[in-house]
């Protein structure tokens, strides 16, 4: 499986034709096809291209089940 540094992930922010990827608990998901992630933004509060583990676990009004249908495209390298 492909690995991502934080810098590589940051480029996948859903803007200017880039795909929209988000990391959660070390896995990188492709949310480009999700209606609620159009343009790499989610609910006015979150942006793609980032590790959103804390945001999902702490702030979101839902769990990780919504990431399940999104393709897993890689692993986020620690650090």
């Amino acid at each position, binding site marked *: 499986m492909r690995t991502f540094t934080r810098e590589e992930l940051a480029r996948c922010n859903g803007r200017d034709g880039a795909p929209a990827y988000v990391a959660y608990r070390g896995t990188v998901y492709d949310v480009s096809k999700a*209606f*609620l992630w159009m343009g790499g933004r989610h609910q*006015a*509060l979150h942006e793609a291209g980032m590790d959103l583990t804390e945001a999902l676990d702490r702030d979101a009004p839902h769990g990780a089940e919504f990431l399940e249908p999104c393709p897993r495209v890689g692993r986020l390298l620690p650090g």
Partner: protein
Amino acid sequence: MAKVAIEMVKKAGVNLDQLVELLVKNASAELTTYYYYTILRVNLIGLEGEGIKEIAETARIEDRNHFEALVPRIYELGGELPGDMKAFHDISACPPAGLPKNPADVKAILEVLVGAERCAVRGYTQICNMTAGKDHRTYDLALAILNEEIEHESWFSEFLGEGPSGHFMRRGETSPFVGKFLR
């Protein structure tokens, strides 16, 4: 725009831009849901569908009421609705509640209905969390809408066999919670 009202909200530590964007997104979700529910409702036919048609209609009308109630608050806070209806559709806080592939499948329609209500419950919970103790008027409005969305979720989940909702369908006026924002 309500200058001092905005000042109070900002001073309380609310991110005004995020809040207004969320209100616009949820206004879009309400109006688009009103539209999609129209299609779902007309397809609720036959022995099974007819029993759900009335309650889907109530949810449809109340969702439109939510749109009407949100709009004044958006403008009070300095926001606006997009001029382009297509753009408005695409920024919805919830995915489109489209008619299932088999429109005769009443259970599939119910799943769309309950899914839309659950999305709304999550969305208004978020707005309540952001505004509680800070932006009293938006909180009051979001809480009123949340009360109705939770009842809608309960109605549809009961039809799906998830257990008793503890609710009865509306008697009398629609929007018992949001009504005060519509007068």
